[in-house]
Each structure stands twice: as C-alpha cells, then as structure tokens.
C-alpha cells in the first residue's frame, strides 16, 4: 500500500463528523480495552510477564541477525524455503514467482499486516491471480477496497448495515441480512475459495528461532485452513517477529492475546507450523516458504532512539487506549498501521516529511505506553520524531517545521529568558487581549490559535502575575496565611 499520510487533518475532520464511525470507535474502549484490563488483573504475574517480554524482545532485536539466521536454518532443515525480502517489491515478486511456478489461479490469504504493507493482494490480481482474504474483517475491507481500520479488527468501523449493503452490491444478497446471515454468506463463499485455492499466503505472529516454528494466532479458524489445505503455503512475516525459544512462546502468546482481545487462556486458534508436510505426516502443504520482510524495518533498527518500536507485538492495545485514535480511527493515519504505534512506524518506515503530521497527532498522554504489553515508550519516540522534524536529523539536516512555528518558538524562548522579558511579553499580551476580554475569558483568538476558541474559552492573562504579587507583599503574609 502506498503511504499517504499528508491528509491527516482533512481526513480526521471527516472521521470526527462521521457518526457511525464514532459509535464504533466508542465500542473499542468498552470492548477490547476493558477486556485487556480484566485479563491483566486476572493474570497473577502479569506485570512481571510484561517486564520479561520487554527484556526478551529487546535482547532479540539487539541480536536480530543471529536469531533470524537460526530461524532460517531451522526452516530450511525442515524442508522449507526462506527468502529475505529487502522491500515490498522484492517480497511481492517472490510470492508471485512461487504462485506462477505452481500455476496457481487462486491464492487464499490469512490476515497479514505485512502483506497489507506490500500491497500483495492487488499485485496478485494485477498478474491475473485471484487473491481472497479469508479473515472476515479482511474479506469485508477487500470487498470494499479499503485498508485496515484497526490492526486486529480491520473492519471494526463498518456497521452491520454497511456490510449488508456491501454484500448486496457484490453478491445480490438482501439488504436486511442479519449478522448470522452475513457470516453464513461469507463462510459459504470462503469455503469455496479454500477448496479451489492452490496456494495460501499467511502472516505470522511469532517466528520461534530454536525450532524454526511459525506461530499464527486467529479466531476464525481460517489460519489453520490456510496452513493445511492448499498445496503451497507462503508465510510473509516482518523480520522483528522472531523470538529466541519455544520456551518463551507460551508467555508471548499470553501477552499478545490478552492485550489484543482479553481472551483467556488463548484465542480460539493458535497454529504452529514447522515446515512442509513430512514424509510420515498426513496433512500440511507440499511446499512451505517463509518470506522474512524488512521493508523499512532497518530504519528503525539503525536508529537507537526508535529501535524499541521493533518490540511491537501488533496487538493493537495502544490503539484502543489512545484517545486520539478513538476519535479519528485508522484510515486517517495514511498507511497500514494506525494509532500511536502507527505514528512511529509510518514516518520511520516510509517518509518522515510526508508523514510529518503523525508525530504531533498525540497529546502525549502516555495511555499507549501504559497499555503496551511490552511497555514500548511511544511518547518518547514521538518526541524524538518531533525533534527530527523541528531541528533536522543527520539524514536530513534542515527543519521541516513550518517557518511560523519556528519563529513562534524563538519568540517564546526570548520571552521566557528572564522574568523581565516575561513581564514585557505579558504586558504586550494584556494590551492585545484587552478588546477580546469578557469576564476574564477570551472567546475568540486569531489564527493560528483560533482552533482553541472553537471549542473552549481561553483565560485572559491575569492583570497581576504571581511574580508581581509576590514582590508586592505576598511574601510578607504571616504563617497562617492571613494578609497582614
């Protein structure tokens, strides 16, 4: 998918005005967010587990080359093929090559954010291969030709009626189909695709290096169908998804699933894949390919300030916790990852200048860090990206911040240099506010501050600052606080 994060403000205004989207976003807080909190409370060693998860991920990312090599060796030993894809184009070309080599006409896909990054579905269709998403949410957004709205719930923004209308337009089903009816329709169509597909493409939630195992977490069973029914299975996985050992997998599955949906003990399906069907095995694919994708992740790895973002398990907890995401939804972020983590990944993996609104689209409240199972310090990284935009970075030394903003901060800096300068600036402020002041409040401010007064009054500068009050005798009040 081609990143387009320049439209953040325009698109967020539209999302704010969209009542069905607002209603569905509210559900994330009462649903996933509360379920995560409940799951955390019900897990006795939850906080220790989060610390341990953070430690293991940090260690793994620091030794990423070692663990990826171990993973690749073990997959190869088990009879699988491994391909390291440096970018989206290389990954797609490899997958198309595999599909062509077996003459595949239909490829079924299990939910994979990496394949959304690379735009694999569209690429397969371009070369005449049918690509069918088999996760219900992904299936819906594929029919609607949209990108995922949420990392784990891609169609959460769509109401039943919107889905019914979509199915009506595509398949001629009645517009009044209820949820069960819509699911039955999708299931029937997907069963057909499962039966005719020669190849599947899945993502992967974890790559377990010491056994060469791929772990897939799903709730609909489509992942298991994809990994067992077609002749060929291709897994497309971000290179950060590796963990060292099978001994750690149980804990990471708990961290991921409890943070994502709150499900206990696990999601409906956890599928482990270690290579193609063995000589003594009854099912599984004839060929297994693991495509390990970089596609900009090296940018994160190379920057010690941003490396922590590679610890992300893609659980979506930070989206549900984020009061900004819950107002604007996932599409405004302009690429595949929305919410707080998207505001790091999109600028760092694609183009900082293009995505420069994203690091600012946060009140820095820290709810994301509080929710993150591995305690990724997202606010700190947002600040780092803001610094790169304001002051430039070694890669691009000039500031990308608007000139008026840079001048404003120079002025601010001069105004707070000394109490005298602040007094002077304050005197100017009081002069300008005089005509706007009504009972201690300014109801209107000129641009670029005008947005504030659209939603709230602004307090007038006090006629006498605390500094001045102190000088004029507050310091003489007695210990009981009475004026002398």
């Amino acid at each position, binding site marked *: 998918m081609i990143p387009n994060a320049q439209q953040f403000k325009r698109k967020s205004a539209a999302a704010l005005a969209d009542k069905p989207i607002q209603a569905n976003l509210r559900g994330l807080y009462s649903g996933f967010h509360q379920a995560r909190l409940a799951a955390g409370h019900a897990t006795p060693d939850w906080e220790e587990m989060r610390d341990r998860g953070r430690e293991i991920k940090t260690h793994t990312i620091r030794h990423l080359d070692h663990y990826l090599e171990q993973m690749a060796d073990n997959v190869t030993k088990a009879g699988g093929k491994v391909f390291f894809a440096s970018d989206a184009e290389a990954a797609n070309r490899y997958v198309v090559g595999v599909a062509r080599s077996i003459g595949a006409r239909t490829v079924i896909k299990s939910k994979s954010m990496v394949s959304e990054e690379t735009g694999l579905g569209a690429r397969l269709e371009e070369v005449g291969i049918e690509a069918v998403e088999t996760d219900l949410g992904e299936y819906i957004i594929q029919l609607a030709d949209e990108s995922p709205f949420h990392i784990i719930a891609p169609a959460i923004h769509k109401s039943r009626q919107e889905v019914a209308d979509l199915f009506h337009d595509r398949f001629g089903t009645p517009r009044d189909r209820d949820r069960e009816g819509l699911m039955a329709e999708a299931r029937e169509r997907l069963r057909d695709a499962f039966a005719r597909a020669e190849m599947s493409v899945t993502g992967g939630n974890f790559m377990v290096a010491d056994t060469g195992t791929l772990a897939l977490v799903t709730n609909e069973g489509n992942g298991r169908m994809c990994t067992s029914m077609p002749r060929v299975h291709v897994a497309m996985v971000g290179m950060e998804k590796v963990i060292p050992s099978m001994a750690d997998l149980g804990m990471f599955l708990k961290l991921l699933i409890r943070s994502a949906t709150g499900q206990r003990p696990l999601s409906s399906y956890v599928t482990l894949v270690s290579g193609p069907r063995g000589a003594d095995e009854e099912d599984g694919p004839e060929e297994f390919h693991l495509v390990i994708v970089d596609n900009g992740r090296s940018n994160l790895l190379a920057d010690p300030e941003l490396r922590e973002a590679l610890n992300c398990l893609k659980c979506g907890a930070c989206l549900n916790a984020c009061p900004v995401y819950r107002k604007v939804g996932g599409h405004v972020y302009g690429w595949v990852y929305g919410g707080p983590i998207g505001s790091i990944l999109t600028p760092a993996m694609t183009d900082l200048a293009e995505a420069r609104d994203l690091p600012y689209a946060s009140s820095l409240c820290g709810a994301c860090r509080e929710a993150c199972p591995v305690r990724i310090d997202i606010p700190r990284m947002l600040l780092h990206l803001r610094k790169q935009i304001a002051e430039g970075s070694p890669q691009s030394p000039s500031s990308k911040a608007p000139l008026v903003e840079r001048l404003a901060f120079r002025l601010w800096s001069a105004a707070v240099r000394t109490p005298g300068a602040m007094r002077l600036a304050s005197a100017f402020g009081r002069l300008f506010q005089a005509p706007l002041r009504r009972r201690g409040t300014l109801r209107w401010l000129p641009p670029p501050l005008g947005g504030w007064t659209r939603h709230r009054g602004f*307090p007038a500068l006090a006629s006498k600052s*605390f500094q001045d009050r102190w000088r004029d005798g507050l310091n003489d009040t007695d210990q009981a606080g009475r004026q002398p």
Partner: protein
Amino acid sequence: MALPSEEGDPAPRQREEDQPHRTGPVAASLFVTCIVDQFYPDVGESAVRVLRRFGVDVDFPESQTCCGQPAFNAGYTGLAADAALRTLEAFRGARYVVAPSGSCAAMVKVFYPELLRDDPAALAEARDLAARTYELSQYIVDVLGLPDHPHPFEGLRAGSSPLPSTERGLSVTYHEGCHLRRELGALTQPRELMRSLPDVALAEMEHPDECCGFGGTFSVKFADISGAMLSDKLDRIEATGADAVVACDSSCLMQIEGGLRKRGSAVRALHLAELLDSRAAFERVP
C-alpha cells in the same frame, strides 16, 4: 508534623525512611510555573498559603520563568535545554522545590535528565534537582506526611474560603493529569488529600485517567480532535453531578474550564491547591 501546635495533635506519620528528620520549619521553594504565574496567580497564592499552614517556610526564587516544556514537546530541544539550564540555576541550593503542577514537575524530574544527558555537569545537576522536586500533593503527602488520623482535617475550620461551604458540603470529582499519573505515578496522594477534607465528598468520574485533550500545542494544531476529547471528558465530569472538578494542573484545568464555560455548565474547575486553601485553615475550632 508542623501543624500549629495544639494539644492532642496526632503524631506525624513517617512516610519515607530516607526523609531527613526535621527539627525546625521545612524550607521549600515554590516553582510556580509560567501558566500559574501568568494566568492563575490565585493558584500560586493558594499553594503558598497551604504550604505555610503546614509550617513550611516558603520562598520564591524570582529568576524562575518556564520549565521549557512547550519547546520540549514541540521538538525544539535546544531551546528547551536553555530553559532547563535557567531553571537549574534558579533552584540551585533549594532544599525542596514544589510545583503546583504534575506536568511541570514531571518535566524537571523525568525529562530534564533526558534532555541534558549529553552534558555531564548539567546532567548531574539535573538529577540532583529532580530528586528535590515534588508536585504539590506528593510533597504534602509523601514528604510532610498527613497526621495519622482517618480525617486529619476534622475539627479544623474552613479558611477565608472563596467557595461557600454548603450544608451538604462540597462534592468534587477528580481528573488525573496524564503526567502526574503516568510520569510521576501519583494516583493516591491527591485523592488522599481530598478525602481528608471533612466537608468534601469525592465522586469519581468514569475513566478519570483519560486525557482531557490539552497536550500543549496539540490543542491548537489538532484543535478539533482535542475538542472532541474534551467533550467526552466534560460529559463524564457532568455525569457525576459534582459541584467542581479538581485537578493538580492548571493546564488541564485551562482546557476543562474553557470547555465547561463554553457549554454553560455550572461545574467549577478547581486546582487542588485552591480546594485545600478554601477548606481548611488548619486552625482548631475553639
């Protein structure tokens, strides 16, 4: 405990083992913060009176201005570091630095050491200042300690209160500032102080930890998103039926009060310092 001495005053609770045993009055320097200085000087006065009633010898280093957070949050770390260095200098030698703001206290305690990490001398001084700096409610509860009594302010007469003491008392709800909660980890201290006021009832709002939408320049750059976040917060505040919403940051209160006034709400926005100042003069009723 340095309440005006009265017979029967309960002994102070020892909160922190490492707190020095005090012999005379404690000295603390007020870091009033620029927003209180320029927009809410009454909050600064309340903070001074409350601290003095606790027996604290309050002084006010007059060279202080702004902690630098606006520039820090906007990515102008060079300008923020200038402000940080000036703040270090202003509070050099202060035993305690107390700020009526979780956000500005967090800037000093948490972000100064990060901001100045490449300058060893400044870093050492920043760490030293960080250890001496407290948000007001944390300072009162963790350093001064409240009397070991379920209602330490019981029997104390309200001071020269700007808030009328209604017959049913005052009902308040508490908004957790993001920095106070998540950078300084203060969940209990403000609530403990409010609960210790005999005629104040705390009615918790739903999701008190949810951001009010202020976020500094965020509230101007993304004014409509910020306004939508504020609107949710105001709904939750009003749903409690409280007379006032209390917070420990004038920045949150600027946002919340501006929104309350805009929608014509009767709910008042109060800084914790103002509430404490209005409720208890720390004088026994004769």
